[in-house]
């Protein structure tokens, strides 16, 4: 177990190292000179151009630049925005809580509703409920986010005036509509996965054996079936959490929420390279961490994995 964890952690660190090289390279991969790219149509004096070059640290050899970048990043210094001179880490820290609140509420919504729907559908396989739940989940998956969000706004904000359409902060009422918009497609996926996985496990011989031994049905389902059926769902949830924390740009934009996804898009359109680098790095770290956590959770659910 310890060896497995150690190996997993070392892999994660190597991945992060690779990510940092990629993120660092962004500024060098821009076609042409990055300073020209930033300045665009603007015409500034040679002195100002030199100052910007200096500010970006572009005069040093590339390995030296990378070293500076890495050592600063490890100390939490991701540089400052070219656009408004606010430290990148500060901007990310301002935007991240809103994204986390949204991601968690969307995921909790997806898990609760998805589990209830999926489990019930599996247990009442072939019933009218099963058909209804699965049809609903297909609709949930097929409706594009921007359309769903717009419908929710028109119904709950414009007509009924129950919830705000432009939400600030992480209060319940501010989160309802964005979390629904973001969470409904996830709910559908969770429901379908739980159902399929449960049906698969319920057909296994050890379940029949457990039942034959006279184990109570509730114990069969919760202890024997669900635990094994959870593995694919955990993988999904882990990856989805990382995805949601990476910022759901469309939902953040639509509800005018603060968030890291909007920050990324805004920075890209502003050619604010330090900010883009910072956001990409933070999102990559989130992905790696979530993946590692997911892998570790597996081993707790299914001991055979850690033996491989």
């Amino acid at each position: 177990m310890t060896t497995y964890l150690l190996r997993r952690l070392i892999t994660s660190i190597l991945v992060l190292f690779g990510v940092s090289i990629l993120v660092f390279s962004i500024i060098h991969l821009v076609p042409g000179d990055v300073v020209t790219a930033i300045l665009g149509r603007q015409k500034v004096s040679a002195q100002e151009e030199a100052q910007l070059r200096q500010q970006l640290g572009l005069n040093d050899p590339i390995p030296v630049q990378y070293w500076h970048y890495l050592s600063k990043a490890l100390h939490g210094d991701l540089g400052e925005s070219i656009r408004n001179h606010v430290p990148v880490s500060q901007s990310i820290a301002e935007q991240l809580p809103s994204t986390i609140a949204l991601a968690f509420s969307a995921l909790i919504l997806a898990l609760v509703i998805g589990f209830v729907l999926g489990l019930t559908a599996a247990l009442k396989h072939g019933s009218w409920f099963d058909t209804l739940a699965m049809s609903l989940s297909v609709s949930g998956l097929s409706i594009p986010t921007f359309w769903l969000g717009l419908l929710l706004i028109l119904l709950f904000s414009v007509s009924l005036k129950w919830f705000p359409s432009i939400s600030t902060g992480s209060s319940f009422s501010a989160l309802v509509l964005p979390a629904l918009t973001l969470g409904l497609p996830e709910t559908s996926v969770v429901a379908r996965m739980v159902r399929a996985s449960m049906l698969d496990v319920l057909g296994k011989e050890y379940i029949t054996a457990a039942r034959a031994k006279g184990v109570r049905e509730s114990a069969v389902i919760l202890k024997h079936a669900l635990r094994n059926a959870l593995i694919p769902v955990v993988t999904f949830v882990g990856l989805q959490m990382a995805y949601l924390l990476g910022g759901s740009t469309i939902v953040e934009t639509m509800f005018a929420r603060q968030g890291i996804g909007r920050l990324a898009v805004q920075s890209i359109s502003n050619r604010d390279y330090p900010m883009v680098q910072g956001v990409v790095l933070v999102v990559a770290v989130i992905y790696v961490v979530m993946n590692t956590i997911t892998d570790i959770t597996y081993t707790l659910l299914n001991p055979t994995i850690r033996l491989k």
Partner: protein
Amino acid sequence: MFKVKYLFNSIGILVAFSMLLVACGQPAATPQATSAAPQPTVTPQVTNTPASTNTPSPVSGGVLTIGLGSEPNTLDPGAAVYVQEQFVLISLFDSLLSVAPDASLHPGLALSWQPNTDYTEFTFKLRQNVKFSDGTSFTAAAVKASFDHIMSKDILESGGKTLLTDHKYLETDVIDDYDVVVKFSASYPTFLNDAGRQWLSISSPTALAKYGTDYGRHPVGTGPFMFVKWDAQSQIVLERNPAYNWAPENASHQGPAYLDQVVFRILPEAATRLTAFQSGELQVVSDPPSLDAVSMSASGEAVVKTFPNPGIPAIMMINTDKEPTNDINVRKAMILAVNQDELAKTVFKSLGIPAYSVLSPTTWSYDEQAASLYRYNLDQANQLLDQAGWKLNSNGIREKNGKTLTIDYITSPVWEESFNELLAGYLKKAGFDVKMRSMDDAGIASEAAAGNYSMLYMYWTRADPSPLRILFHSSNIDGGSAYTRFRNSQLDQVLADGDTQTNVDLRKQDYVTAQHIIMENALVLPLFTVNNVYMMTTSVQNFTFDLEGYPWVYDVWLTK
């Protein structure tokens, strides 16, 4: 040399304008600008006028939430460039002077002012008993600190910095607490007008020292509202300054503002601004979708107020240096072929305002006659092209000596010019072949510098015609923005004189002549006047604009 940077900001993304890059400004900057104005009277001018029985009396209280399309970069007036910044700054800060919508000068933080004869030194007598919202007293030291701050190394570039650097700012001399002299080494005849704008408004010296480079996120002024907080990408919150007792005399009331709070919500999506307005979360929406604004206003659900931007309307600058547009008849045919009225109404519905000249009608020195030279006339356009030897081929495109009548139009996807196709359609009817090349800013810059285009899109919001020099003086053809590449000594002479002329009548004559030369030579294809549109609930009262279209929130009140 001026900086083209500001120019491109202004033409690109409908943001930065009202740029003053050269020694130019409001017409009122004349010798009679000196004024020993009395203390403003404390009589409310709109409030409690017994004659108007229909007008309800203003009430205090309430929160005004305004939906803005873009977020400021800074709230430091000295570092500001963009429209969305001035939108907020106007409520937070006061300037030395106050410029009324009719461009007349009134006392602001300065009670009186006196320029020297060559407009290089300006002596101000300051208002007493004024406090910044952090408790600092407003004195001459604040004026010096604010101007020195603009010139400091902390600020690389800004609107204010361009103004001060272009006129070679020397120093601010503090004579005593309430007497101060601002000195330039170049003549600056329009300084008093600029001193009335947001870019040169006065910051608290205590706050400038305390926050340093972070001041743009902690602004402290003497304005009618005080800064509360700025949640990036979300909102900027201001609250009433209860001590405010120094409103300019041209305001419609005195004393503290009516509103408790003003909240600027940052809502880049027009659809989001619209639904938030419909759900009652916003009281004012800037730049709403035209169709919705028109229909909601017609149904009485909303009030729409517009402010046609002064300055240079949306135009195409035609390249006079390149075939086929080097022929004046081709250029005239282009102007005649476009139905501006229909174009503006199609794109902006009833809010569209067609443009017929190089200046919009609300600009000082606008000349009606120059604007009457061309009206849509397809027959006349065809006739001119026939005379010029351009014959229609079987594809409906004109040809001459084996060459087609091609208009090379470089455009940017960022501009989202909904009129592009429409414009191309009009030109096509006269036998032009419009080739649109969409490229990014860097691409446009290099093509523009090389003269590789037939026409280029431009607009520039400014109450004064001074940007004409930047766009049409032949010294700006190479390395500048004189994209029509037209050389004419008389045009150069009047544009240069307009920059330094202190006599209002002579200066006006300069710009009238310039408008005539530009239009007679068909240098530009006018399209429409850029119109600031605000949609608001019926509860919003007394929503007015300053001379460049910024909402003057101080006088706004909400019916209960």
